[in-house]
């Protein structure tokens, strides 16, 4: 099933002519929605098109391979941690999980109200629904916000994807739109990181295919660049990083679905770290092998490498997740190290 799905999405994206306005390719979203590929991973009984989270990840990953300008990682993966997406399975969703300076949810009379802003909300100016990690009383809560925010500052990451500052002040919140629990914060941040790990895996593959193709065609000194050993060694390293990042993302997705939150967080942290490391190496090598032409706006490479450079820093960079992981590992001590790896 997933091979067929992969090819279907790949064929669609290969044939699609990108048309990005106001930061996103709305036409492409519509085409994917028409094929049921947006509401994938949600039961048909809930208004979705069926399939698993792994199928949703396939859509996200293949779209990233083609640098699709869409909130797919956010909608199909990041927003799935709390079973709310079935409320509007074909709509655009995002997740904002700030580590500090969060908006505040507080009681007001008989109801709940939000105050404060959140910067760098992925696709904030585009999406209909947002899962927002807010401070609430002694802890935090996930608030499902269905629009109504003010766009304080439109901004983008270096790939041109909207990363807007939204102001939620005065928005009233329904009790049914609040999700609490000690693990809500961890699930929220992890869901975003998992989405990016999957996206990075896709973009890495796009870069790998493009770069291998380029060095097979481009000739210097009477032969294709790919015949030179120095080039081969670099290309091999690029392919290795792509392989292991993909394996890590797939494994983290599996942990997210199968295991307890703790093991899932470790796995997602590891996948995000590994994917971020791979993004850095692959972007560098691909630009080096493409030479000057790959450095231009006209050439396609930057659509992918700018995403790699952006996504590695979103929903926690390598050093953020390494600190989270490292703190847990050091606290558990030497005797637990092996079992934390192998079970």
């Amino acid at each position, binding site marked *: 099933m997933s091979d067929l799905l992969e090819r279907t999405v790949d064929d669609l994206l290969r044939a699609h002519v990108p048309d990005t306005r106001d930061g996103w390719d709305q036409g492409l979203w519509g085409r994917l929605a028409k094929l049921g590929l947006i509401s994938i991973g949600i039961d048909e009984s809930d208004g979705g098109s069926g399939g698993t989270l792994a199928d949703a990840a396939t859509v996200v990953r293949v779209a990233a391979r083609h640098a699709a300008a869409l909130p797919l990682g956010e909608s199909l993966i990041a927003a799935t941690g709390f079973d709310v997406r079935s409320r509007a399975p074909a709509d655009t969703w995002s997740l904002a999980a700030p580590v500090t300076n969060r908006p505040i949810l507080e009681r007001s009379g008989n109801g709940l109200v939000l105050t404060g802003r959140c910067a760098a909300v992925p696709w904030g100016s585009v999406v209909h629904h947002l899962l927002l990690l807010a401070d609430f009383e002694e802890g935090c809560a996930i608030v499902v916000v269905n629009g109504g925010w003010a766009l304080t500052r439109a901004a983008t990451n270096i790939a041109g994807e909207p990363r807007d500052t939204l102001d939620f002040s005065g928005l009233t919140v329904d009790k049914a739109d609040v999700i609490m629990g000690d693990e809500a914060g961890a699930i929220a941040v992890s869901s975003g990181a998992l989405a990016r790990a999957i996206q990075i895996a896709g973009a890495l593959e796009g870069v790998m295919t493009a770069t*291998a193709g380029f060095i*097979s065609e481009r000739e210097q000194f009477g032969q294709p660049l790919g015949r030179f050993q120095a080039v081969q060694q670099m290309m*091999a390293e690029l*392919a290795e990083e792509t392989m292991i990042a*993909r394996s890590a993302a797939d494994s983290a997705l599996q942990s997210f679905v199968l295991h307890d939150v703790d093991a899932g967080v470790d796995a997602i942290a590891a996948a995000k770290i590994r994917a971020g490391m791979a993004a850095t190496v692959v972007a560098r090598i691909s630009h080096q092998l493409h030479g000057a032409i790959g450095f231009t706006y006209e050439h396609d490479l930057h659509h992918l490498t700018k995403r790699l450079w952006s996504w590695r820093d979103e929903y926690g960079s390598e050093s953020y997740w390494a600190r989270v992981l490292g703190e847990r590992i050091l606290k558990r001590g030497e005797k637990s190290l092996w079992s934390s790896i192998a079970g």
Partner: protein
Amino acid sequence: MNRRDMADLAGFDLAVDLPPEAVAVREDVRAFLRDELSTGSFTPRPDAWLSGHSGEFSRKLGERGWLGMTWPRQYGGHERGSLERFVVSEELLAAGAPVAAHWIADRQTGPLLLRYGSEEQRLRFLPSIATGETYFALGMSEPDSGSDLASVRTRGTRTSTGWRITGTKVWISHAHRSHYLTVLARIEPLDTGDRHAGLTQFVVDLSSPGVTVNPIALLDGERHFNEVVLDEVEVGDEEVIGQPGSGWEQVTSELAYERSGPERFLSTFLLFAAMVEVVGSSSAAEVAVGELWAELWSLRRLSLAIASALHHGKVPEVPAAMVKDLGTRFENKVINVARAVVTDPHLAPERYQRLLRESVLHAPGFTLRGGTNEILRGIVARRLGLR
């Protein structure tokens, strides 16, 4: 057409879970190791499959059915799954247990004989490999033939009863404590148009007349490696593995199978663990440890996926080469990170200092043995259609 995408490079599941029987055997191995450690029967060492040679320990593993695990019962095997074998291996390596004696026989020679050997050879050698009593060493490299294995000059000459072998093999781990040597020899002169033709694998009894084993000390002063001089050593036709002339295909298949196992990224695990113990809790330590953990976790997941693919009859040669390159570079990185965060090793416990020292002294070998990393990256490049 070479699509040069992931489906091309890895047509198998990259995220696999262990089946219940593999999870179960892990507990058995851990219990065994706890017992062994409590009696002091071994000292955990880095790079244990090179540095830890113990016939007694290998026989204990044999008794418990942890050697020849996946082989058919009629050859002394236990018909268990590859993932159970994977689990047993990784537990032993992570504990720094002395597995060197049986390592080559169990992991390479056994599968080689199952794949290409005669029935007589299987019945002759496999049962006592599986009991941990018969040890094999690898006679491949020569003084003038390292990465260019096809250039070996050891010569096999036909006789009325079999073959006569003359040549010198080098870098052979534990030849001095092994019973047999698998020897790659040339039975026909090198044909520059087809360099891989005319190579044959033989089994040579190391107690045969004409065999001389000379030690080669590594820079740490230890004697693991050997030179073996073969001076007109007589072997029978029954000592040819596979067909005369099919040596190249066999040897490359043998190498491919064993490129991606846990031994490719656990050689310095004990140092990593000791670092966790002594490093304290600064944010620099947290970041360093977290990053290493992420890399190790990722390597293991990919290695596991490849083991599962092998179990399902696939031969993921290129992903296996990738794991070896990535894993052995990781093994080196553990040393660099340890040095970066444990800033005064002289104040650390003696155990940490010993593990650091042994890891440093063994490190050059990680990226050389089993195919240098540069050669392996060339294999990846070839798969991408660049060569």
